[in-house]
């Protein structure tokens, strides 16, 4: 079975990814609404969209970092530029997300071409610092002197007085919402069954489809001769040069592609929620995508997506667990025990979510050198071994990497 130029294994892999993405509204909503664990449900539109969008961002970053080994510390700049372009399209042209996303990808691609062309004159840490410097300059300027373009601290927002020349009927006394040919991004439907409420959001499915396409392209790049060349750059630049190849155009191509992925993610962020804030370009945001990729497993296909989901989950779910929620959970316990337990857990949740995240970073890197993907592999390996024990005739050794 082959499909879209993929071999059998990759086809299966892609289909699994498609299935996971499509069923995300179910998978992320495992707990019943009235149970205490509902706090851990993540199946609401905004977070699902963020999973998909930051997944795209991380997939794109991985094309550069995972394949060529060039560690960019300024990728958030492209995300920010993409967001700003998209919001400007909403303000000036139309609330349709297609032109906004296209412009976001083009502008961030050009921006990446410029920065990549200069930064790729250096390798290693020198490259990283060059990209960091460009991104920080973008952030600092966007926050201050470029305020007429970026609206600085507040972030670029829609206003009632925007022209929106393609949809004049939208000029009313309330703000229009982003849409795809009339299908509004913040539309959603709910299905209540077994005490669980599943939300199917238009915005999420738009993000999901784009994420799958982005994933497919990344899969093709990984498997292509071009991808092979990129991996060759990572492992040995000297040999690469003595193979007759100039490494820079390859690295630059990878840089621009991953910059466009970032721009796509930025454009999508703005499409789901039409606001572009300068903080999206700060070094902490660039660092976040680096962490996502390493945490999930750099150079693997699925890792960065897992890493992105992991970090966004903690940011959005753990930060909301306050003492009140804790009391709700442990109310059944005797008072003394309840209070002791809450005192113990308190520093790690709510305002302490950073602490938990930091500790998990350390634990993952210490015990799972290959990132979260390695955890998946180990679990899969465990299952396979069991299966192999059950069926002694199954002699095939599982060596499929869980990319």
């Amino acid at each position, binding site marked *: 079975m082959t499909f879209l130029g993929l071999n059998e294994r990759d086809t299966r892999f892609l289909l699994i990814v498609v299935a996971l993405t499509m069923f995300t509204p179910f998978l992320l909503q495992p707990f019943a609404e009235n149970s205490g664990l509902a706090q851990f449900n993540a199946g609401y539109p905004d977070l699902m969209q963020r999973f998909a969008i930051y997944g795209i961002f991380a997939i794109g970053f991985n094309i550069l970092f995972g394949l060529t080994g060039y560690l960019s510390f300024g990728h958030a700049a492209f995300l920010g530029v993409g967001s700003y372009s998209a919001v400007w399209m909403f303000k000036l042209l139309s609330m349709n997300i297609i032109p906004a996303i296209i412009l976001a990808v083009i502008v961030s691609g050009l921006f990446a071409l410029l920065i990549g062309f200069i930064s790729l004159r250096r390798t*290693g*840490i020198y490259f990283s610092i060059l990209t960091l*410097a460009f991104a*920080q300059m973008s952030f*600092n300027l966007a926050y201050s002197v470029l305020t007429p373009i970026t609206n600085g601290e507040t972030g670029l927002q829609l206003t009632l007085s925007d022209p929106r020349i393609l949809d004049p009927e939208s000029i009313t006394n309330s703000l229009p919402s982003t849409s795809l040919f009339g299908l509004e991004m913040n539309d959603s439907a709910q299905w209540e069954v077994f005490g669980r409420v599943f939300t199917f959001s238009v915005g999420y499915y738009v993000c999901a489809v784009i994420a799958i396409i982005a994933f497919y392209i990344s899969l093709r790049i990984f498997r292509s001769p071009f991808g092979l060349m990129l991996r060759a750059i990572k492992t040995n*630049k000297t040999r690469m040069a003595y193979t007759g190849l100039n490494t820079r155009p390859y690295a630059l191509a990878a840089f621009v592609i991953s910059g466009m992925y970032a721009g796509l993610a930025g454009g999508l962020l703005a499409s789901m929620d039409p606001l572009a804030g300068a903080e999206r370009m700060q070094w902490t945001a660039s660092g976040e995508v680096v962490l996502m990729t390493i945490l999930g497993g750099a150079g693997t296909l699925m890792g960065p997506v897992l890493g992105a989901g992991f970090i966004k989950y903690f940011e959005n779910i753990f930060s909301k667990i306050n003492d009140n929620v804790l009391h709700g959970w442990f109310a059944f316990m005797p008072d003394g025990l309840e209070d002791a337990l809450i005192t113990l857990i308190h*520093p790690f949740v709510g305002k302490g979510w950073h602490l938990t995240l*930091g500790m998990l970073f*350390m634990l993952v*890197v210490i015990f799972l050198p290959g990132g979260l993907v390695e955890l998946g592999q180990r679990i899969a390996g465990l299952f396979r071994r069991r299966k192999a024990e059950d069926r002694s005739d199954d002699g095939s050794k599982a060596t499929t990497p869980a990319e």
Partner: protein
Amino acid sequence: MDAILLQVLNGLDKGSAYALIALGLTLIFGTLGVVNFAHGALFMIGAFCAVTFQKLLTLSYITIDETRTDFLGNPLEVKSPYVEGWFGPETGGAIIDWAVPLAILFSIPVMVAFGFVMERGLIKHFYKRPHADQILVTFGLAIVLQEIVKYFFGANPIPTPAPDAFRGSLDFGVLLGFDPNAIIYPYWRLIYFLFASFIIGAVFAFLQFTTFGMVVRAGMADRETVGLLGINIDKRFTLMFGLAAAVAGLAGVMYAPINSPNYHMGMDFLVLSFVVVVVGGMGSLPGAVAAGFLLGILESFASMNEIKSILPGIDQIIIYLVAIVILLTRPRGLLGRKGVMEE
């Protein structure tokens, strides 16, 4: 002229903070080859050594003053430090006043021990891991340290003033024949500059003139060969890490009176210190120091009104702009060694 001189002075001071932080970082990053994202946190912990020491000195017992009331209308609880009780208000007060300089003595063993534990417990296992893993683990550590400090000290800055004797500023301008108030400079910042120069000099001398320094420098160049000579290089690298932590910590202690310490001050300096180290050139101690002062002075110049009016926002980006220009004209920064972190 006086305005330029003034900014040179400012730059030297800013630069000495940058240089001191970068010096510690380059010992770990440029020479041990560990991308240490927790270095800013070491600086922050140094500053909180001063805070902790100040808190220890001002540990107080409570007396009730019936004549006054607190915000709830209850009798006011008056706190008086034990130190003042033991040594009398005058001596005790002076000891508390000198908390920050005294905290230096307190911080050195704390920071060295901290460095040892960090290296033995964590970093040691990451020498041979990819840089990406080092980034993740040290970043995680930085967050954890920062959150621990936040848990105990809160997010608000905590004032740690310099001793009274060093408050106010020196009128340099008068010494040089300018108008009064043309070039003034706070005493504590002068002390910071002198202190930083002393520490930098001491670290250089230590690495240059002691056998320990020689072995470490040799080990940086070729770890295996030194290991073959039967020298226990691991132990020395641990010491080196302790040294780097102490340098970062001292930079933090002395910085506390300049700006009140808060839990995220490390992150504020982290990016900057990486830029300084890389602009200085990987693996070069003099490079890091030179870059620290250079960037400090240029940053000060960029904040002059005369320059800002021509190039608005230049002070926002000057450091990064200079970094880009230097890295493009000099492939390995100011004084970088070939082959360090270029892969």
